[in-house]
């Protein structure tokens, strides 16, 4: 099937609070989809609906071709959930946790033991395999969590904020693991509030804000959607700054009178840059410094999600 996740006009309220206000989402099989949003944007609610943990009020949701509401058991057979609060049994050891999931997925005793050993080595859990999960670091717990989700490789893997609360080194380890999983063809729905994480891992990103998808595209598309790359000209005196503004009379130019900077849109090619600087030199408006400025996903995020607007609604 072409799409692992097909969601249309999905709504969900808790009492008077609308958490999802009509979400549309399709995720092609074998891709990593990033769901980006601030706390309370509705990311976890969406994941919990798709994982059959909670119901929804309106719209449709299909996972791996199965209707989430009508055929929950088939959906459960196709998904694995890696939760915000790691979905591991803390009283049990790594080995016990993995064997438990293997047995629940009907692997035989011998097959369970073999799969457990395989996952312990693949997810680098050997040193802690027989220690209780309560003693693990955050990174170790997430790796066990991921390993438990991969006992039987799912059609769709949910990664709900997989690196929240991890130190940078553990985060890099989890990222590396996620990339490896993605390479095996597992479809991943990743929720995160970290733009860098979505940029690093996701093929496509949806920005969720106030229960709606406010933007969607590849990380590159989203960046260009907000503002293209600009050449930032910095001036040392007002005269040259004014001269530059007089020369560059296009609506795309943005200027800062206090900092004496002028941002000019560019395609980044040397030719366009040379033309720009030549025309400025002719007009006696050569800048003191020239810099290239590419928008980050942070710019995208801050432009698309405005917390003040949200509070007023």
């Amino acid at each position, binding site marked *: 099937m072409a799409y692992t996740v097909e969601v249309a006009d999905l709504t969900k309220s808790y009492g008077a609070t609308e958490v999802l206000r009509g979400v549309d989402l399709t995720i092609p099989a074998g891709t990593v989809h990033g769901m980006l949003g601030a706390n309370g944007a509705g990311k976890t609610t969406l994941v919990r609906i798709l994982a059959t*943990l909670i119901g929804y009020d309106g719209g449709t949701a299909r996972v791996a071709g199965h209707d989430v509401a009508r055929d929950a058991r088939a959906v459960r057979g196709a998904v694995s959930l890696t939760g915000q*609060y790691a979905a591991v049994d803390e*009283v049990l050891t790594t080995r016990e946790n993995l064997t*438990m999931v293997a*047995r629940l997925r009907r692997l035989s005793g011998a097959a369970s033991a073999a799969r457990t050993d395989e996952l312990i080595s693949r997810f680098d859990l050997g040193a802690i395999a027989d220690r209780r999960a309560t003693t693990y670091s955050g990174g170790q717990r997430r790796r066990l*969590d991921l390993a438990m989700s991969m006992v039987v490789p799912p059609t769709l893997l949910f990664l709900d904020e997989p690196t929240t609360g991890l130190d940078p080194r553990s985060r890099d380890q989890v990222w590396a693991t996620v990339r490896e999983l993605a390479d095996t063809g597992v479809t991943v729905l990743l929720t995160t509030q970290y733009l860098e994480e979505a940029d690093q891992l996701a093929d496509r990103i949806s920005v969720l804000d106030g229960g709606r998808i406010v933007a969607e595209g590849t990380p590159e598309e989203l960046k260009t959607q907000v503002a293209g790359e600009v050449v930032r000209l910095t001036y040392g005196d007002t005269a040259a700054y004014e001269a530059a503004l007089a020369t560059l009379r296009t609506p795309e130019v943005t200027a800062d009178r206090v900092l004496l900077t002028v941002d000019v849109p560019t395609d980044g090619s040397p030719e366009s840059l040379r033309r720009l600087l030549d025309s400025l030199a002719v007009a006696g408006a050569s800048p003191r410094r020239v810099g290239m400025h590419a928008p980050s996903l942070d710019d995208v995020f801050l432009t698309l999600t405005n917390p003040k607007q949200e509070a007023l609604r």
Partner: protein
Amino acid sequence: MSTATTISDAVLDSRVMIRRGLIRSARDPEAFFTALALPVALMLLFVYVFGGAMSTGGEYVDYVVPGIILLCAGFGAGTTAVAVADDMTNGIVDRFRSMPIAAGSVIVGHVVASVARNAIATALVIGVALLIGWRPDAGVAEWAAAIGLLALFVLAISWLAATVGLLARSKDAANAFTMVLAFLPYVSTAFVPAHTLPTALRGFAEHQPMTPVIETLRGLWMGTSTTGQPLADQAWWALGWCALILVVSAVASARLFRRRTT
């Protein structure tokens, strides 16, 4: 692919969850001994401190043991309610709920572990009772019947506790259930015969589920009754109450497990 849970699926899932429950219990001895220590202390208190003032016809220890065993089962059930409530806040339960497994299996795991803990606790209470002079007058058949009834009672109260654990939104709320169970035996024939109670309490004591269980056990072990009813009548009431609690709890807990939305 069949989308329904078959009986054999439910059995296989439950086996995995029972193993989980037993491992978890074995790693939490504090909860077990806390739930054991209080009933034993109460037994010693009642037998040695209050027992002399109690007129129940015969040695007070012979009278009080069935009540102490039920009290112990009540504390044990409290542990179960707290364990279930705590478990529901763990990420692992989200994993279970998003897996294609039988809805009741997680609770079955808790309940069976609870029954296992209670079996050990009951054996210890009986051991202490024998040490301090309890002398039951019962043959093999009576002992078998008493153990069978106790097992059914513990199963029912454990399942009820698991249901309460699912309903409770926190460990503290679940813990309050322990207080109810620990109080109920006082308003039964556990410590004093019902006819010694004030009228209002007496009506409750004679008709609440713990009384027929206690009376049946006492009848089996000592051949005595404080309510004047025949042993068989008491036994049917006891079995009926246990079966009712068991069925209602089993159905309710399976539904609650799937329905929880937080």
